[in-house]
């Protein structure tokens, strides 16, 4: 992974010093709450329900074991012993003290970590395929480009006060694993007919109150122009994006208002002035950064391991885990392993200090000292010898990290919701917990098969409910918590937005509704059809009918 040189480190140290002074002036009354707000937000510090919330950036989801140990240390010493992994590969602490944050930033900087631009109306943490460098269907490694763009975005003087937040993701494989079309800029790494690398550029996607899928603005932008092209997009947005209405300030609204063709024209016009200028990425710079992502020192391994194969045949629990939580690898004899942070009884994405230390240890023992965060709020060890799978499984299982539920019903994507977040309309963790408890039976889950159930506590959609096969959205109705349920959303290549079934439900009704949706699926499914396949074949109507069948017409539910 990327290792800082003296320049990276100096910049980060200067950032820590800058924020330390800002905090000092704020506490001394020289910097008002309003003036301090955007500064603290761009250093990851929110003021939340119970305490400040502190969001740490993990660029494109890569974590070294020493960084995981540092996070564990922070959890123990500055928080309540755990952290939360988010859908944008950030790490959140829910209980730090305001005045401790500069010191936490200094601790993070000592392991090349930071909270740069994890909030505020600026370019946020950039995400990429979690299986970059190991996936068999990869066009090319996106991480050097993600790192080059991270550097361009970090403390960028022109784009620190955009109309609204700005999120960028890279896809680099046949299968989209980053939900590319819901990003402000989605960069799809492709090769042209001549075999040259470049990007198909999507702009204007986003979830939130007005979910929109990104439109293709550039069909093929050669990699050398990645910075200048993104700069052109950002400049058009910074100048002409709406600033009069918070809810209409994302770039998606500008793209929609202008139309993709006019937006493209403006970007091209802007780009014509800077294309081939100093921001053109040099081959030397790409080579320098790419060297950091060279494949680790794989050992020659047989493609199959007889011992593992024997265990797979005899140990059902191990075999189930391998089936659900282990992915193929392009290196013979290696596999990518997903550690589940979705054990029933734990808030999805929550991880204790002890678990972080253990993941660090497992990374050191089995995966070249690195772990990767998935937007589904799980953690992957990307370079594990197949021969080590059993040992790894046993260690992970002992720590509650081996629930064989990846892609299944209880592998819920869930935001922190009203228990923590001051933006939330409703709590999401208790809903996730009730669903996990009700459907904890693994045989049932395996029978239901692959299904994405996503929960957001408000329209900001941190829990990606729009793209869940089943999406649950917390809504506020006369100060009580209600839940709107949608079905038919998908992430991946054919990303689609789910359709709302109808009137919302009280919290204690939600599990029953999920049960009815699943019953309907089981009755209607054809062989090998997943829940989403059935929904796409028969439409939402049969599901809707079942869910609302016993509702009395006079008993009108909150229609939100």
């Amino acid at each position, binding site marked *: 992974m990327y*290792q*800082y*040189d*003296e*320049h*990276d*480190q*100096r*910049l980060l140290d*200067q*950032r820590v*010093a*800058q924020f330390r002074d*800002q905090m000092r002036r704020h506490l001394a009354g*020289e*910097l008002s709450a309003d*003036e301090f707000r*955007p*500064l603290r937000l761009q250093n990851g510090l929110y003021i939340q329900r119970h305490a400040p919330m502190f969001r740490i950036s993990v660029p494109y989801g890569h974590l070294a074991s*020493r960084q995981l140990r540092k996070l564990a240390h922070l959890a123990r010493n500055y928080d309540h012993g755990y952290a939360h992994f988010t859908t944008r590969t950030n790490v959140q602490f829910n209980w730090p003290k305001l005045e401790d944050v500069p010191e936490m930033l200094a601790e993070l900087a*000592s*392991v*090349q970590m930071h909270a740069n631009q994890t909030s505020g*109306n600026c370019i946020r943490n950039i995400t990429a395929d979690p299986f970059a460098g190991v996936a068999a269907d990869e066009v090319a490694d996106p991480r050097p480009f993600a790192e080059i763009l991270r*550097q*361009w975005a*970090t*403390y*960028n*003087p*022109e*784009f*620190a*006060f*955009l109309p609204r937040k700005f999120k960028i993701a890279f896809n680099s494989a046949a299968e989209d694993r980053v939900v590319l079309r819901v990003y402000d800029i989605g960069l799809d790494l492709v090769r042209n007919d001549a075999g040259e690398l470049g990007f198909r550029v999507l702009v204007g996607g986003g979830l939130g109150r007005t979910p929109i899928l990104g439109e293709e603005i550039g069909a093929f932008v050669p990699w050398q122009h990645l*910075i200048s092209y993104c700069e052109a997009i950002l*400049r058009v947005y*910074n*100048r002409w994006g709406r*600033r009069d209405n918070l809810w209409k300030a994302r770039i998606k609204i500008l793209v929609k208002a202008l139309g993709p063709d006019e937006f493209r024209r403006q970007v091209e016009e802007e780009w014509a*002035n800077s294309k081939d200028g*100093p*921001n053109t*990425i*040099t081959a*030397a*710079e790409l080579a*320098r950064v790419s*060297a*950091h992502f060279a494949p680790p020192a794989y050992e020659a391994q047989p493609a199959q391991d007889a011992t593992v194969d024997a265990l797979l045949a005899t140990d059902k629990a191990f075999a189930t885990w391998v089936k659900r939580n282990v992915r193929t690898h392009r290196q013979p004899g290696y596999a990518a392993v997903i550690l589940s942070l979705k054990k029933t009884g734990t808030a999805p994405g929550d991880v204790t200090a002890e678990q972080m230390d253990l993941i660090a240890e497992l990374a050191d023992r089995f995966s070249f000292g690195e772990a990767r965060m998935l937007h589904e709020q799980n953690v992957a060890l990307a370079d594990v010898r197949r021969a080590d799978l059993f040992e790894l499984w046993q260690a992970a299982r002992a720590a509650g990290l081996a629930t064989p539920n990846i892609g299944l019903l209880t592998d819920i994507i869930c935001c922190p919701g009203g228990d923590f977040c001051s933006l939330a309309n409703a709590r999401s963790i208790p809903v996730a917990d009730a669903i996990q408890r009700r459907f904890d039976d693994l045989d049932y889950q395996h029978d239901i098969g692959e299904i994405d159930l996503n929960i957001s506590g408000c329209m900001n959609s941190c829990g990606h409910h729009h793209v869940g096969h089943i999406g649950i959205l917390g809504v506020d109705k006369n100060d009580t918590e209600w839940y709107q349920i949608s079905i038919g959303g998908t992430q991946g290549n054919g990303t689609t937005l789910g359709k709302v079934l109808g009137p919302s439900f009280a919290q204690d009704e939600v599990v029953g509704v999920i049960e009815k949706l699943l019953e309907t699926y089981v009755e209607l499914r054809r062989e090998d059809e997943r829940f989403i396949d059935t929904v796409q074949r028969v439409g939402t109507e049969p599901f809707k009918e079942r869910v609302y069948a016993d509702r009395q017409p006079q008993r009108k539910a909150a229609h939100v």
Partner: protein
Amino acid sequence: MPIASRKGKPPMSDKIIKNGRVVADARLTVTLAEGEAPADTAVPAGPVLVPLAVWQARRDELLARARSGEVGVWLAAGEDVAALADDLTLLHVIGLHFPKFTDGRSYSAATLLRTRYGYDGELRAIGEVLRDQFNYMTRCGFDALEPRAERYTDAQLEAALASIDDFTQPYQRSVKDPLPLFRRIDRSAGPQVQA
């Protein structure tokens, strides 16, 4: 918005930052009152910044004063810098307004004026100009920073000079650093930070 009076309360600074130093400054910013026609507003004697609308309506009248540097023009955050494209060789001072410090349009306007249009006169940040944005402002090409008269004391403004150098070797190309870091310095030595 600074109106045609910068006589702040005694302890507060009516100085500005120019080229990295705190200096006295007498330039007034003329603003149009609600509904006031550009033709009717008074343009006082001495150094002033006038709104774009006033400049456009009364260019002939103000031309000599602009050439001498006495009259400059300021743009609101939503106004297109292209409107001044033909006047950049004669103007000595251009102001770009920050209606709120969180409104970042003038960073792009400054960058465009300095790079695309090659403007090399004084570029002054006016409006809600705070020390925590000094580094970004100067990197985008502002050489004059005019906080509101009521915001800082002289001593605070002196202390605020330090913020200009918050980042000494930034990643990006900007007006101040015409080359991105990867072209500005040799990074081939590789990682030197080990943990």
